[in-house]
């Protein structure tokens, strides 16, 4: 072939990654011509453990490949763009020691070993790279300098899950340098000692047992303000009792403990109770330093991110955090709050970056709305993006250019969100769609249309749109929109009837014999659709009930039910049951999603434990009850159903 544009492009890519950057131009050109480009769907296997070696090794061009081993298929490593895998067996002439599986949709370059091998022999740098990479496998494979290139085998290490490196579940490292005083030590002496030892807190002990703690803050509040004289004894100003934990506590537990009691220091005692010897102090700072993967640190990292790509990586850490929270059974309300905050921060940062990319500042105020599950703060896993933009009204002659500006901005934001892992919405419910990027008056018009002519599509649109949440921009625009929705829905109460009957249209979760109903055909044949059959009836019911009460700015479903319980004490029991059921189902879905690296929507019933099945079925009773309540309250006749 005289000219080959594709091989040139392949060479352009490879030359950025070792060892290909060591090859001469003509070597790289020859190599690139012999490459095969392979497309792998998510979960496709490239090779399996114990397979005989292929004739080529692989470089990830786009996507990610997980290297797994053993019966449990523990993930040993994740190969990203530019990473090489499957090379060692070809050189050592042995079978694959791991399974390589596409972790997401992936494009690979397959490089024939017979073309590559002579270069490795001729070119000293390439050879060294290989030797070093193989050798590094016997040492710490996660050491930064060796990270990510050629390891095919990690002997003697056992499985290391990626979250182990990112989110440390190991016991915390606390400060063993225990600085303590007695109950009678004066504030002055305490301050002197703390300054001398450079610590921020001092433990007050009696017979080696912790009875109180004094921090910088306590000295400031009590002594420096003049509230107590400098000669005051420790027992007067100390905080007591001390929150104590055993030294085996994990970082996450420590975080939660500090968050829960809003304190900055924990005391580590021998058996974890205040009745045993104090052995150390754990400060918030220790925790931060010990591991850079707590929500506060992640938020900072997001805010500092300069490129969309950085945020993509941070989002991976967020997923690990989520997994750890779930494993430790941290309440879902707290978990979803933290994770949603983090996700929101990511989106905000993407919007800020998009604004920087625009040649001019926005012509008028605007607000970026997250819709659907994201708007409800129930999106723990990465799913599709649903969003909309509202901007301030402008005179007619400005309309065209203003719309054009915000559409362009939305396009950049949607692309940015895609780049950090939010798939495009298949129904185009995104702000870059001209129907979802409107001025306040245009939105009011659209909403009026939905509310006054509630057909199936209008109900669907309302049910997605009415769960909006302000992610970025002007809150007054959003408030005006909300007020308008309450105003118009009160004027046309028939809308509630339609919305309520829409909420009753989801297919039933169980059949006549109380068996779980699974999908009959399609990709998810024989799977249980957790979203459509269990979660949606609950979220839909909560929406129509809370709207009919004109309650603003409670978007998440459990929160809505709790508010409803407060508003209607006679129905408290059922609403609290709904709140509980929603939380249980969300947690269930999230766990399933993490397990299978998907949205967790479809569940293989035969893989569930008996206990899980019982749990699942228990929520169905609640679903049935809330649907009956809707039917009665909105007088839904059978005709409408």
């Amino acid at each position, binding site marked *: *072939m005289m000219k*080959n544009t*594709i091989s040139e492009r392949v060479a352009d890519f490879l030359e950025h990654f070792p060892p290909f950057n060591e090859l001469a131009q003509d070597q790289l050109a020859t190599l690139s011509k012999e*490459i*095969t*480009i392979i*497309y792998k769907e998510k979960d496709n296997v490239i090779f399996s453990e114990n397979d005989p070696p292929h004739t080529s090794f692989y470089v990830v061009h786009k996507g990610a490949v997980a290297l797994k081993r053993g019966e449990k298929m523990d993930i040993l490593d994740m190969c990203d763009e530019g990473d090489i895998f499957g090379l060692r067996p070809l050189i050592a002439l042995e079978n694959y020691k791991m399974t390589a599986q596409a972790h997401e949709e992936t494009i690979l370059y397959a490089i024939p070993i017979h073309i590559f091998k002579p270069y490795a022999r001729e070119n000293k740098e390439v050879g060294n790279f290989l030797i070093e990479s193989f050798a590094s496998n016997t040492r710490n494979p996660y050491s930064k300098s060796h990270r990510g290139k050629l390891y095919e085998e990690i002997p003697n290490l056992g499985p290391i899950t990626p979250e182990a490196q990112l989110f440390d579940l190991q016991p915390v490292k606390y400060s063993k340098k225990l600085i303590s005083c007695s109950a009678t030590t004066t504030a002055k002496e305490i301050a002197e000692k703390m300054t001398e030892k450079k610590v921020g807190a001092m433990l007050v002990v009696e017979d080696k047992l912790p009875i109180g703690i004094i921090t910088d803050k306590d000295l400031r509040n009590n002594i420096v303000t003049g509230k107590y004289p400098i000669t005051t004894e420790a027992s007067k100003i100390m905080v007591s009792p001390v929150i104590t934990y055993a030294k085996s506590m994990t970082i996450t537990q420590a975080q939660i403990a500090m968050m829960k009691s809003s304190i900055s220091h924990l005391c580590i005692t021998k058996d974890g109770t205040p009745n045993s010897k104090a052995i150390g102090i754990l400060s918030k700072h220790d925790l931060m330093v010990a591991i850079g993967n707590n929500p506060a640190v992640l938020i900072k990292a997001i805010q500092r991110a300069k490129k969309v790509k950085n945020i993509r990586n941070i989002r991976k850490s967020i997923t690990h955090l989520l997994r750890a929270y779930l494993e430790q059974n941290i309440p879902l309300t707290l978990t979803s709050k933290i994770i949603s905050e983090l996700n929101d921060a990511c989106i905000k940062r993407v919007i800020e970056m998009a604004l920087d990319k625009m040649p001019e500042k926005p012509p008028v105020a605007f607000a970026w709305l997250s819709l659907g599950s994201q708007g409800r703060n129930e999106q723990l896993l990465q799913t599709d993006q649903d969003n909309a933009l509202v901007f301030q009204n402008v005179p007619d002659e400005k309309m065209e250019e203003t719309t054009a500006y915000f559409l362009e901005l939305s396009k950049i934001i949607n692309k940015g969100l895609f780049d950090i892992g939010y798939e495009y919405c*298949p*129904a185009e419910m995104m702000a870059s769609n001209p129907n979802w990027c409107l001025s306040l008056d245009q939105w009011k018009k659209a909403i009026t249309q939905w509310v006054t002519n509630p057909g199936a599509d209008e109900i669907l649109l309302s049910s997605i749109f009415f769960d909006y949440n302000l992610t970025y921009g002007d809150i007054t625009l959003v408030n005006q929109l909300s007020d308008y929705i309450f105003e118009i829905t009160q004027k046309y109460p028939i809308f509630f009837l339609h919305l309520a009957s829409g909420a009753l249209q989801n297919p039933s979760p169980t059949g006549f014999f109380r068996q779980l109903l699974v999908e009959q055909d*399609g990709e998810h044949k024989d799977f249980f659709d957790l979203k459509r059959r269990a979660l949606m009836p609950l979220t839909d019911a909560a929406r129509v009930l809370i709207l009919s009460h004109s309650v603003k700015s409670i978007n998440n479903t459990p929160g809505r039910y709790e508010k409803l319980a407060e508003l209607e004490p006679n129905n408290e029991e059922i609403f609290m049951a709904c709140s509980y059921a929603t939380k249980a189902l969300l947690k269930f879905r999230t766990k399933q999603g993490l397990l299978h690296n998907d949205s967790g929507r479809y569940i293989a019933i035969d893989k569930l434990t008996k206990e899980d099945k019982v749990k699942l079925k228990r929520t169905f009773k609640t679903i049935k009850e809330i649907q009956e309540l809707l039917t009665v309250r909105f007088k839904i006749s059978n005709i409408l159903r």
Partner: protein
Amino acid sequence: MINFFKKRPPANLPEFWKTYENCFLEKQPEEVNLVRFVVLDTETTGFDYIYDRILSIGALNLTNNHIAINQSFELYLIQDHYNAETAKIHGILKNGRGTECITEIEALKQFLAFVGNAVIIAHHTIFDINMINQALERHQLPKLLNKTLDTSTLYRNTLLTSNVFKKKDHYSLDELAEKFDISMKDRHTAIGDAYITAIAFLKIWTRLKSKGPLKLKDLIKLGS
């Protein structure tokens, strides 16, 4: 299906055409993974089937999700007719620059040998096929015999059918590249566009397949 035995083409067709035609004695397998696809793009002097000419042909061999680079096909044609306007888009100058150019008949000969009985995939396939068929006609040759797929139509079929948003009649290759996050670096070279089309096809195929099992004949129904 054309029955070659009933209606034999004129006997005076050249040998290379007969070889091409004989490829079709072998039927394509119904399993999509086993089918040989050729992903094709032509750059032309313009959009008029009669007056405009093919500037270059780029084609890739795609089988079982594999694209072997050394089996790709990229050639440039010597030009009699030349349209300075479109050359600006493609960056191809009359009779190329730095690349070897061949005659139209030689290009057709090489293309037929390459494509064989493969199923042709292109973006807005009808245009590329018509351009090639026009060229074949200029040399007194019959039309292409291959089955075809159009990524624009296939993509349309991956979208949800809903009154909530209107599907467009056509989707441009740029739109597909953007949706599927495919680099547009070599846009407007024949082989570059063929590559973008190939990756888009693979991603579309994954999405279509997720809705239920599909054989080749179903795919052709969806995409032509």
